[in-house]
């Protein structure tokens, strides 16, 4: 079900057929590729173009207003050297890593897997109810999820109502522990995706295999570790890749809840790029941050694709 699998499989199946190559009429390939053109044009103009421009723009002092807006100067790697010595950037990078690791790789992934596993044991009705509740948070537009989370963690919000029930005086969660608040909000919002991926994956695990293992005396945790998880490992890898990259680019949720504050305490890279480019009008610097994010995304995807292919081989 994944692009990575497709690529990996093609790599295996193609090796032989390619060299055998009979001579084909040259027009045929062009004709066959023609249906690709709308997609290629769209991707070229709106994705590849801006990405290439990002690499160039990050080497200039382009700005939204002022002299630099009309005539951006080539500044070489200045934006990047500035980035590396900018404590705000280093903090932002660190916050992004924490946000992705805790809310996606640990939170959404494990909770989603847990719910999907529990659903295989639970009654149909309960699974249905849970499915609706979890998916509801995910179907909601991100900005509404942001408002809801804002209200939930607010000083006068629902969370403090709950703590009051236990006689604990709450705090302004968005102000005192902004990262915790946005991480929990992102888990709440994003778990449905992992849950659905794992539901589908677990559905495809043939019952005979787990039953055979049961007859051989494998307990529940052993069956999970040695049979179920290895059988759905491709879904796990795909899911990790997708949620990591989704979480890496989360902007709206954090923007609505804390706007990156207080004092940058929840400013992940997307928020910092936005602030630099549009608030402080330093497009070159903002673009340099964008390039860093693109590179992080690229590194992640390469790691996951490699992991996928190694386990296949």
């Amino acid at each position, binding site marked *: 079900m994944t692009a990575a699998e497709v690529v990996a499989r093609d790599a295996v199946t193609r090796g032989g057929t390619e060299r055998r190559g009979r001579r084909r009429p040259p027009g045929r390939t062009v004709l066959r590729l023609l249906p690709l053109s*709308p997609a290629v044009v769209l991707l070229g103009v709106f*994705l590849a173009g801006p990405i290439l421009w990002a690499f160039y723009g990050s080497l200039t002092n382009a700005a939204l207003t002022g002299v630099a807006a009309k005539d951006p100067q080539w500044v070489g790697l200045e934006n990047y050297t500035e980035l590396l010595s900018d404590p705000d950037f280093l903090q932002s990078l660190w916050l992004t890593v924490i946000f992705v690791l805790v809310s996606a790789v640990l939170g959404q992934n494990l909770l989603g897997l847990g719910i999907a596993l529990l659903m295989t044991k639970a009654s149909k009705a309960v699974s*249905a109810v849970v499915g*609706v509740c979890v998916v509801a948070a995910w179907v909601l537009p991100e900005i509404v999820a942001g408002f809801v989370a804002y*209200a939930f963690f607010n000083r006068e919000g*629902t969370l403090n109502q709950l703590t009051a029930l236990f006689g604990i005086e709450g705090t302004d969660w968005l102000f005192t522990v902004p990262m915790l608040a946005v991480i929990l909000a992102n888990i709440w919002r994003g778990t449905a995706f992992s849950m659905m991926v794992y539901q589908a994956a677990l559905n495809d695990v043939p019952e005979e295999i787990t039953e055979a293992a049961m007859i051989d005396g494998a307990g529940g945790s052993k069956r999970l570790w040695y049979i179920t998880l290895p059988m759905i490992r491709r879904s796990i890898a795909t899911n990790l890749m997708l949620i990591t990259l989704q979480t890496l680019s989360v902007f709206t949720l954090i923007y609505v809840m804390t706007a990156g504050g207080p004092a940058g305490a929840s400013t992940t890279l997307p928020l910092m790029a936005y602030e630099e480019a549009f608030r402080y009008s330093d497009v070159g610097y903002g673009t340099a941050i964008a390039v860093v994010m693109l590179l992080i995304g690229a590194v992640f995807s390469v790691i996951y694709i490699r992991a996928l292919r190694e386990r296949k081989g």
Partner: protein
Amino acid sequence: MNRPAPLSVASGRRNTVAVLANVSLLVIAACFLLPLSWLILASLDPQASYQTQFPSEVSAANYTAVLTPELTFVPLLNSFLLSGGTAVVTVLAAVLAAYPLSRYQMRFNKPFLYVVLFGTCLPITAIMVPVYSLFVQLNFLDSLAATTLFMAASSLPMAIWMTKNFMDSVPVSLEEAAWVDGASAMNALARIVVPLMRPGLAVVFIFVFIQAWGNFFVPFILLLSSAKQPAAVSIFSFFGQHGAIAYGQLAAYSVLYSVPVVLLYILVSRGIGGSFAMAGAVKG
């Protein structure tokens, strides 16, 4: 709704496991539902605050207050144009692109799929700064059409590989029969492949539509005049201007804005039947 427990040696232990699983799932469901309950309750409560409370009087006052053309109808219409357009363009381009990738073994397939894969990995948020510069240079700023095309392009990589995988599972033998009967490749695609993968295409369409509908950042950057902005952006300005006072109205507005995607999601997951994860949940 409970299935009768299957007759098995381990059925006694299975029942204990089932009870435990049911209880933990219900606890999880409550945690997920709790924040949402504020949204619904506050939207019906004229005296709403950030507290979750049952309204002393249930009224639709919040809804009637926000149901004005400039606050709700125009932004919702813009959202429909933007998301619908994005989904249509994306699905069309994805189906066309997936066909050669799925049906022909070409030198070109593997590098293209690598590029597509890389595209699915891109954090779209990251390229908004360069995209803004591109739009300034091409004079595309504040254009619904250009924004639609950009949103379509940004969802294309994912759509292409989803579509290609759905297409791979449609057996080629059916098309070969059509080819023998003299149908062209495009004919076979339109008459045989697309109808067979309708559920898959619906998933792609809904996926793209919901994503576009909920997208705040892209129109926030690329559309300037409030007459063109979709609900995602106008709701944010409402939050900025009145959010701290009119909690109930903000909640009502949020509900109105969320209803279309929720309905669409339910409708389509019912139509698709068993092939979508939510189907079981909705059908009960």
